[in-house]
């Protein structure tokens, strides 16, 4: 079943002469349980595309569907039931406990007027904390978390929201390699066990080719490639992205191969 789809998406910025096209005729359809990575050079529109998929930015053209409903038909207050998002623009709020932060995911969907929690919400929160390995941090202040722990707390918040679509903007940026691997592993498990549809942007090609089910490579002038990691690695756009013929990705194990003369 297609959970997240976008058809004929065009994104452009500016007006008149200075108009700058990031993306045109972009199409994607993702089934439940897919882990999808968006890669590409800086400034090709990875975050813009993610914001469009999240309904936080209106595309110049085209339509996004969540669970087969066109986005404009889903009222703002119902959207957290479908989609949970994590963007780099979200700033850290220090004066909250991890539990408070995660509970925000519940108050977005539990229909409470004053932001209260029902007994069922605590179950969701505890489950989310457990899945992300953050249970021991529940009573800690967010201020005292490391970057990796904070990222996991935000992930727990998204999980507590219990929505089928999860969108993450460069979730592995400030993380060291073990933490990045752990996070990717967790996302993969969520896609498999909880049938989440997860889309994330990243610069970490190694992780992408090992972990993602579907890869979207955005090139310049609105060109893009979409497919399995093997397909995208072999795609002609990949050379443009890597900027040189000397670096390529080997077909068998999807590692970088650097050819030296």
């Amino acid at each position, binding site marked *: 079943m297609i959970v997240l789809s976008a058809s004929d998406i065009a994104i452009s910025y500016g007006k008149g002469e200075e108009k700058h096209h990031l993306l045109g005729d972009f199409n994607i359809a993702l089934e439940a349980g897919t882990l999808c990575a968006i890669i590409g050079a800086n400034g090709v529109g990875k975050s813009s595309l993610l914001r469009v998929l*999240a309904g*936080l930015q209106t595309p110049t053209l085209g339509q996004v569907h969540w669970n087969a409903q066109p986005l404009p038909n889903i009222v*703002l*207050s*119902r*959207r*957290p039931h479908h*989609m*949970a*998002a994590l*963007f780099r*623009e*979200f*700033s*850290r*709020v*220090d*004066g*909250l*406990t991890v*539990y*408070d932060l995660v509970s*925000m995911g519940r*108050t*977005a969907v539990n229909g*409470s*007027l*004053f*932001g*209260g929690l029902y007994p069922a919400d*605590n179950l969701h929160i505890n489950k989310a904390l457990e899945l992300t390995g953050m249970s021991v941090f*529940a*009573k800690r*202040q967010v*201020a005292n978390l490391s970057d990796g722990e904070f990222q996991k707390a935000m992930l727990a918040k998204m999980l507590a929201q219990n929505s089928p679509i999860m969108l993450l903007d460069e979730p592995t940026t400030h993380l060291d390699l073990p933490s990045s691997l752990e996070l990717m592993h967790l996302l993969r498990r969520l896609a498999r066990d909880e049938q989440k549809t997860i889309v994330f942007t990243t610069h970490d090609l190694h992780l992408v080719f090992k972990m993602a089910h579907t890869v979207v490579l955005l090139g310049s002038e609105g060109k893009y490639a979409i497919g399995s990691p093997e397909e995208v690695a072999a795609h002609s756009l990949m050379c443009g992205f890597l900027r040189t013929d000397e670096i390529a990705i080997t077909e068998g194990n999807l590692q970088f191969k650097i050819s030296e003369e």
Partner: protein
Amino acid sequence: MRNAPIWPWPLMIVAIVLLFLLSIAVGSVYIPTAEVWDVLWGDALNKVNEYIILDARLPRAIVAILGGSGLAVAGLLMQTLFRNPLAGPSVLGLSSGASLAVAVITLIPGFTSLGSYGITVAAVAGSMLVLLVVLSVARHFADVASVLIVGLMLSFFTSAIVGFLQSLAEESALKAFIFWGFGTFSNVSRGQLWAFAIPLLVVLVFTPVLIKPLNALLPGELHARSMGVSVGRTRFQIMLATGVLTGVVTAFCGPVAFIGLAAPHLARFTFRSMHHAIVLPGAILWGGILALAADIIARLPGLQLSLPLNSVCALMGAPVVVYLIMAGRKRKMLL
């Protein structure tokens, strides 16, 4: 599971009740405590003392609690909306907007006939007008510094006009305006109490609805939108609430500074949390406590005259705010 301390709540409620009683018990006229008690329970022997307590001190104490709470909530809403620890009704020029409106009505002869209701409506309009300008700037420039600068410049601008009006005004009108500018909680008579209390109470009763969007706004506007919050509507509600709170309090009590700035910080500090379900009631209580305390200090027994409320607030408030902001940085308990 919230992990915020519970013990401050009973302490703060006891403090506010004690300060309320103290505020009724002390004043330039000495009335024995036993007699104060009798008057409050409705069997007064001395008519003069009954009048002093029921018509002067009681309304004054109620105005202080409500006014302080109102300013505290206005400050909290501003601080979260602008994500800035220095935001507050007086810093962003809202009080100056209200002051300008009050100046127009008290200083220009033709307008004086509008009376106290006219002043209230004009002050609310004045503070909301300034907020509107500040918000439209905030929309175009994301950085808070420019918003604060515009707020500051607007208050210079309005003070300039106020100064102009003052230079033209008659002596008696000028004197009335200057006394208004000192700030006091004693200007609301028992008859006017409703006009003061009802708009404030309506807004204060409505504010818990904002707890959820305010929390969602803490990590930023994009976050709030991703959580299904209509940022435009929330901004409008905050603007309306702040405009009414600041406008009404400023119209009746003068431009009272520092309470709106300090009370939310004190609340965050006391409960070590920024969660609005905790900070909102915390700020309301702290606002009441600060206002009652400042009012009692302003007319300490033994002093024949009462000090200007604004001077007391500034003398008390400025060091407190400096301390809170320094310590808040250290403990990461700042917006």
